[in-house]
């Protein structure tokens, strides 16, 4: 009887302490769970890959648009932009054919502008720094007499990352009927 009384006084449940302790444990559990969740979200490999994909696409769209834009009144700036948007073989081709091409455009007096309709990355090797893009393009050619013609282009581009930036290393149109059309 006496022992029972002592046990009762020594271990009488303290509702407030128990409640606070339970709350602390629950809060601790939540903190551990969300902390781990946050860590996982911050160290997700796919996030870095997704960032590279979007960067490559943005650079590809801009470069393809640049290469389809040329004003005969401002050839130097236009062709400089062509060269700065490209790298590798494509860059060499453009640089070597620059003078000849400039003469042609000057003679034709054309103003070419382009608008990207849609674009997507088909392949991305973020370690090697290579990507392949599909870019749907609408090119508007303004002739010297003011006439304008629209032409849709199904572009296939290859990008290479150089010095942390994505640049076009190859560009062509998707072939029709199994044969390349240019």
């Amino acid at each position, binding site marked *: *009887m*006496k022992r029972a*009384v*002592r046990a009762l*006084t020594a271990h009488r449940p*303290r509702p*407030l*302490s128990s409640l*606070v*302790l339970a*709350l*602390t444990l629950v*809060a*601790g559990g*939540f*903190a551990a*769970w*969300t*902390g781990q*969740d*946050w860590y*996982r*979200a*911050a160290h*997700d490999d*796919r*996030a870095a*890959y*997704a*960032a590279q*994909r*979007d960067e490559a696409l943005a650079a590809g769209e801009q470069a393809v648009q640049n290469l389809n834009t040329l004003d005969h009144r401002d050839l130097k700036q236009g062709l400089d932009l062509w060269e700065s948007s490209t790298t590798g073989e494509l860059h060499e081709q453009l640089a070597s054919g620059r003078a000849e091409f400039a003469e042609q455009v000057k003679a034709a007096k054309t103003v070419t502008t382009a608008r990207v*309709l*849609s*674009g*997507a*990355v*088909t392949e*991305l090797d973020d370690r090697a720094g290579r990507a392949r*893009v*599909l870019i*749907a393009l*609408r090119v508007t050619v303004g002739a010297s007499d003011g006439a304008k013609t629209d*032409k*849709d*282009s*199904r572009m*296939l581009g290859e990008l290479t990352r150089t010095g942390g930036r994505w640049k076009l290393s190859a560009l062509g149109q*998707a*072939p*029709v*009927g*199994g044969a390349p*059309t240019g």
Partner: protein
Amino acid sequence: MSTTRHHINRQRRRQARATRSATSAGTPESAGSPTRPGGTAVLPPPGSPSPPSARTAETAADGKAAGSGNGTADRKASGAALGGRSARGRSRRPAGLAALCALTVLLGGFAGWAHAKAEALRDDPARRNTALTDLARTSELKGRTSKAVDRLFSYDHTDPGALEEAARDLLTGKAVDQHRALLADVRKRADAQKAVITTTVTESAVERIDGDRARVLVYADQSSVGTAGNGAAAGGADRTGESRKTAGDEGVYAGAMLAVDVVHRDGRWLVSGIDTFGR
């Protein structure tokens, strides 16, 4: 007067006395111990029968208390016992409770903050778009969409039901009307010329996957082979075609490009929108 009540009263009193003596002695460990002299001076040790004189005295006292103020004494005694017990932890427990409360608030605050951070990271549009990052889904989408476009833009004048079946199977939402409008002309011409239009997707790329919605850019070739009159059906099968060429007896080839919105429903990808870029 019941003996049980008598016994309980005795226990209470003994306990109160013991606690009081323990508090004054400053040794909390021995509180309530019956071996203390303070306890035995008045009450007999437990187990041993009380001397008859003591028992009668108590009985008499209890007898009086039953009617008058002994209840107050009892209450006083138990009050003293309570005071003795809480005096030990009075300085420690509230501080501990406060620390626990603070810890709870801190942990809760961290949990909320970490959750917000994780959600912000995941809500990043670049990350929400799982095109290419989810390779399995990306290639599945490319395959399904290519097959869907092949079926939806191919037409055989001898089997017009196939196109209607494809439309029923693969289209949903506004794509139904878009598809009908796009194909109406083509069907009329193909029927007149008894032509077979075959569409083959040559390139496709997934622009965006966001959960069960996606957008796919598609390049397709269309060949139109007429079996009546002049052989090749004049004009492209699709208005999106921007470059054409005749390939001998094969008919007319046209290249087309379109963006297709698809939605994942009941385990299948359905076309919910067809964008021909205003052509």
